[in-house]
């Protein structure tokens, strides 16, 4: 994965490219596991939670929930608690957790051990997506090293704190990035989300209080303890503290992942680090934040990349993807690829998502093939808005977002597509549909 070097402060990628990720001693030589030692020997669990709360760290998986607050909601008295790392990085365009896991696995392990201490969990799981075989191997190697060096296991740093860690592999299901589906999957079940409440902090893995945090979130924790909440809070903006890994991809001159403090605008990042678009091309749209986030029109690219600024314009930071799409790309065909993704990844448990994602995809393909009507556009909006408020989990609630935001900002393209231009068949869209169709027909129906 391409990594783009920047001049600014690095937190989660502080060691990236500077150490051999397979050698724990190199991590230790750069101050590794000092924060864990500090937490265990000089801080109470409550003090750790307070420090993380004060830092303003928010979940980096997409929802942006304050991490310290999430930790403080964990049920206090329980015979067993768990800390779970969500490494099911499935949001299309997202390639950040992979960088951390393969580039600095001990940073994640240390973050998890600290989180475990803070909430009172003696056991942790890293749920890594099955396609990330290198990450899984690297993590397993690093966990063994950490255990051999006394950073995992019993009586860490001479205290009575015990913490063990295990990697579990996903098996190809985007929905397992949803925390309760992830928990179901670790338990060995179909990855179908649970209704909430109860929240995992009350009853999660095997019914025990569980905190689920994203890889990037946890990798921030050792640095927060090392340098203090005040230092951390001084980076980024008031409501979006610290740094974020952004992934520049799509039709830019340079593509890759980079760590930046919150606050630069979308345009600045694309131009400064992405090198802008190819000569002679114009920006059509930016799909910001991943497949489940909004489609951003060029008019909004001067919005700063912070939780609050993006929310104010009806967009979202999501997982940090900046997918630039130029004017050479077919609009409908892109939207179809997105709706196809959600139909394929819906778990099938709740009606709005199971049936809704399929119908949205069907209508979009119909429009792209030149058979759409104006009523189709109304129906898309009705259905999308229903899913946003009625679906069981975040997948179904977010799945219509690209369609709804693109209806908002690109209505002219939709109207054009449904306005009696049936003869002008969109070849790219038809080709895409053919691929999708063959895919479904290939789905196994009966066991051989």
């Amino acid at each position, binding site marked *: 994965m391409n990594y783009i070097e920047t001049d600014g402060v690095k937190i989660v990628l502080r060691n990236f490219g500077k150490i051999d990720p397979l050698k724990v001693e190199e991590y230790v030589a750069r101050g590794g596991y000092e924060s864990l030692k500090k937490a265990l020997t000089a801080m109470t669990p409550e003090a750790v939670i307070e420090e993380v709360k004060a830092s303003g760290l928010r979940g980096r998986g997409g929802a942006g929930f304050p991490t310290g607050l999430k930790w403080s909601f964990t049920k206090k008295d329980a015979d067993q608690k768990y800390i779970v790392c969500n490494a099911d990085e*499935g949001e299309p365009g997202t390639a950040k957790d992979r960088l951390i896991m393969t580039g600095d696995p001990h940073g994640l392990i240390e973050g998890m051990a600290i989180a475990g201490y803070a909430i009172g969990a003696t056991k942790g799981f890293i749920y890594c997506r099955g396609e990330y075989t290198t990450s899984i191997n690297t993590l397993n190697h690093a966990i063994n090293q950490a255990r051999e060096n006394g950073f995992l296991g019993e009586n860490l740093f001479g205290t009575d704190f015990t913490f063990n860690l295990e990697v579990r592999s996903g098996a190809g299901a985007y929905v397992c990035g949803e925390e309760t589906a992830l928990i179901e999957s670790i338990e*060995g079940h179909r990855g179908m989300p649970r209704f909430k409440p109860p929240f995992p902090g009350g009853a999660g893995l095997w019914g025990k209080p569980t905190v689920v945090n994203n890889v990037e979130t946890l990798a921030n924790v050792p640095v927060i303890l090392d340098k203090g909440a005040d230092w951390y809070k001084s980076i980024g903006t008031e409501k979006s503290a610290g740094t974020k890994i952004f992934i520049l991809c799509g039709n830019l001159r340079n*593509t890759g992942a980079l760590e930046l403090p919150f606050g630069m605008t979308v345009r600045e990042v694309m131009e400064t680090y992405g090198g802008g678009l190819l000569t002679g091309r114009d920006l059509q749209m930016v799909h910001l934040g991943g*497949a489940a986030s909004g489609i951003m029109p060029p008019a909004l690219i001067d919005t700063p990349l912070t939780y609050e600024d993006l929310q104010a314009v009806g967009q979202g930071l999501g997982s940090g993807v900046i997918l630039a799409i130029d004017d050479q790309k077919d609009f409908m065909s892109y939207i179809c690829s997105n709706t196809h993704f959600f139909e394929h990844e819906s778990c099938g448990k709740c009606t709005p998502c199971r049936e809704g994602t399929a119908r949205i995809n069907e209508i979009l393909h119909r429009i792209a093939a030149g058979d759409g009507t104006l009523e189709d556009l109304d129906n898309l909006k009705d259905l999308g808005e229903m899913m946003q408020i009625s679906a069981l989990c975040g997948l179904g609630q977010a799945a219509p977002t690209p369609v709804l935001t693109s209806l908002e900002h690109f209505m002219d393209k939709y109207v054009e597509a449904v306005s009696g231009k049936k003869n002008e068949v969109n070849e790219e869209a038809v080709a895409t549909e053919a691929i999708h169709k063959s*895919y479904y027909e*290939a789905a*196994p129906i009966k066991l051989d």
Partner: protein
Amino acid sequence: MGCCQPIDKVTAIVEQYKGEKGALIPVLHAVQKELGYLPKDALETIAAGLNIPASEVYGTTTFYTLFSTKEKAENIIRVCESGPCHVSGYQKVLEAIKEELNIEVGEATEDKKFYLEMTACLGVCAEAPAIMINDKTYVNLTPEKVKALLASF
């Protein structure tokens, strides 16, 4: 106990995970790695060995796209069709693979060397288009590059 029959290998894997919480998915992974897919008798052995209802074992197996209940081929090609790969032109790479191997998505070559399927994001989006063959990811592909890659198998 002999260890020559595939089913004995399944039994051995199940034994290894017995008593572990949430063992089903790790066991399915391990068995698939051993056999290439998850045939019915393997699922039956897993259900009995882990004391999980067969319906649950089967339901779980069919939920996840990385698990297969049918035999595919020696090498499984997964072409990423997510947004960044779409924008970067995975379609041409896919066409090249189909042409080179003379198969459609969801099919295996006659010699059972390759099986072609689509996948969601592989997490290498800055180097799209990308495909995975078995457990390795290949990036920045063009029709020419992918043809050369296939020839190396």
